[in-house]
């Protein structure tokens, strides 16, 4: 077992990725991702990581290059954020349709405009339907663990899909946190070498990325949908295996003091930790509050979510992005639709919080609970509101 050290989360993630013995990384700098790329380049420069480190001229080319290298049979990695992810957008569904196991960190950051470098989830939300597995980390340890597990999930023969590991920009990426880094031997025991099912090698020439019209396109889309749905089983297995080997296990939906809760709050990413403090405070006052953390965004964990909220009267869904002119935040829409057919479901409230790095204190979380508890007539259920907005 590795020892517990204080590391900036980006550095810890880069160390974790190096432990996965990647063959190639293609990266382009963008705040707040850059420290991952910088530290990986240090590891290559110091001879600690034997990988081709390709410093491309844009995120579009970063994704293009890792697609090319993955197609050649290499274990690949990239990391990006915000505008960089938006620039990659065109290529994300291509990577998943080509069934290439690419692992990418997203240091979640607000999408311009106006330009803003701080954290929210407006970069990952537009990528929802790209056919990528998407997981969210809450703290530095999770970022490390989920990054290593991501390679194993992506490369599993029943999955063969790209994975994004979402790490809140600054609030998580730039924190120095106590992290246990596994040893090389431990990672080698956990993560077998990548065995691609087809590669761009003259010993067995294949055509990748062929052109397809209406006669096959629907079947290819259905195949991709089946693949990502089937990945659920592998994700559960890999996370359980991680838990058995390292003692920290992960679930698609995790809860905190939720078993007997009347009112639940749902978060994704780093804000779950602040929400927990608020919940402890409310519990101290006799409010039966609890937390639901959505770790797995795609494939969406319907069964786990339904089970987690089944006994609650009220559910507060927090969103870190806006679906302009839509039915509420993107997470809220998803949760509502997941619970729509339930005979008994909680009243669902939606707050759009922490946009562009807007600070969310414990008192803000308590405030949301207070507001929803006070809404006895349920007048605000099924609506959304920007928390803390100055009007």
């Amino acid at each position, binding site marked *: 077992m590795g020892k517990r050290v204080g590391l900036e989360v980006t550095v810890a993630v880069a160390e974790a990725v190096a432990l996965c013995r990647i063959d190639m990384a293609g990266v382009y700098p963008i705040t707040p991702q850059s420290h991952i790329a910088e530290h990986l380049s240090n590891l290559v420069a110091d001879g600690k990581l034997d990988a081709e480190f*390709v410093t491309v001229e844009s995120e579009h080319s970063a994704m293009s290059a*890792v697609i*090319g290298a993955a197609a050649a049979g290499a274990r690949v990695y990239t990391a990006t954020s915000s505008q960089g992810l938006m620039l990659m957008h065109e290529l994300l569904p*291509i990577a998943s349709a080509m069934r290439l196991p690419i692992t990418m960190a997203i240091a979640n950051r607000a999408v311009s405009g106006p330009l803003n470098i701080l954290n929210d989830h407006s970069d990952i939300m537009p990528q929802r339907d790209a056919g990528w597995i998407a997981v969210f980390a809450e703290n530095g340890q999770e970022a490390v663990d989920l990054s290593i597990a991501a390679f194993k999930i992506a490369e599993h023969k029943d999955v063969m899909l790209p994975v994004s590991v979402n790490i809140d920009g600054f609030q998580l990426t730039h924190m120095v946190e106590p992290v246990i880094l596994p040893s090389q031997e431990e990672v080698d025991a956990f993560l077998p070498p990548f065995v691609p099912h087809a590669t761009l*090698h003259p010993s067995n020439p294949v055509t990748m*990325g062929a052109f397809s019209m209406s006669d096959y396109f629907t079947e290819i889309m259905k195949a991709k949908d089946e693949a990502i749905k089937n990945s659920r089983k592998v994700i559960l297995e890999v996370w359980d295996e991680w838990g058995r080997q390292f003692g920290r296990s992960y679930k698609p939906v995790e809860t905190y003091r939720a078993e007997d809760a009347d009112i639940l709050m749902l978060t994704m990413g780093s804000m779950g930790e602040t929400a927990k403090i608020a919940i402890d405070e409310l519990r101290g006052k006799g409010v039966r509050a609890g937390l639901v953390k959505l770790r797995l965004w795609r494939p969406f964990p319907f069964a786990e979510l339904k089970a987690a909220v089944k006994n609650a009267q009220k559910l507060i869904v927090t969103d870190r992005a806006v679906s302009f002119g839509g039915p509420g935040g993107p997470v809220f829409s998803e949760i509502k639709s997941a619970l729509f057919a339930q005979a008994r479901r909680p009243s669902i409230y939606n707050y759009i919080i922490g946009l562009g790095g807007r600070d969310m204190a414990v008192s803000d979380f308590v405030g949301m609970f207070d507001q929803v508890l006070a809404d006895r007539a349920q007048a605000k259920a099924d609506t959304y509101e920007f928390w803390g907005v100055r009007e």
Partner: protein
Amino acid sequence: MNIVENFDLFAPRLINKKELFSCGHRACSGCAEVLSVRLMCKALGDDTVVASATGCMEIVSSMFPTTAWRIPWIHVAFENAAAVASGVEAGLKALRKKGKIDDRYIKVVGMAGDGGTMDIGIQALSGAMERGHDMIYVCFDNEAYMNTGIQRSSGTPMGASTTTAPAGKASSGQKTWKKNMPEIMVAHEIPYVATVCPSYPLDFIRKFEKARNIKGPSYIHCFSVCPTGWRSPSETAVSMGRLAVETGVFPLFEVESGHYRMSPDMPKKLKPLRSYFKPQGRFRHLTDAEIDAIQERVTAEFNKLTQKAKFL
């Protein structure tokens, strides 16, 4: 004996017989671009991986579940063939170094049309060349966005009528001079830049063989006659390419480590531009004065190039 005039006699001995780009593709009749791709494959041989941009060559060769490619081939998107090729190269390099694949030398090729190279793909291309990947990049230049229906690109020559720069009562077609892509690549100071035309197959193959043996990036600009887009008879695809070279519109040359050399196929005296313009519908509307102005520019550009080739 002139080798090209007696091509049927010499070809079987001089050219790789193996067809790595098979028949059965869906290119238009008389397509010089697909002929170029076939020749390229013959020149480069089996140990080649091709990353293709979206475009004519992609759609005619890879209609799922069929393929014309007998070498490994990948298509990802329109603007990123160079970036994909650079990733394939980096991936293969890492795997070979680590002993995960056979220890054999594989050449990676990125290819796109003039739009995919000179317009939307120029950033990815510039990046890949600057990074020094061991790859060949080929621009198959048919002087417009032919796959989408003959729209103008920065590779379209002055005066050509296209569907987005049409000739009309108030316009003579393309209003800008063709972007000088080979010179942009020379400015990247890469080891090898060359121009080729499939109407000169031996020069074509020799240059590809040279590029294959260079460790590092090379750029080949291939003049690819498009009878459909140029509104010229399909049986003239090869002769039209020869006219482009003979008039100096598309000079054949190579630049090795900054040193220019004209191809031996270049004529001593250029033919007048009119002989090249006349059979093409895309230039039909041009007035004598307009052709004269273009002729002046073509002559000047050609002289500039020969001056560079003089001082080796």
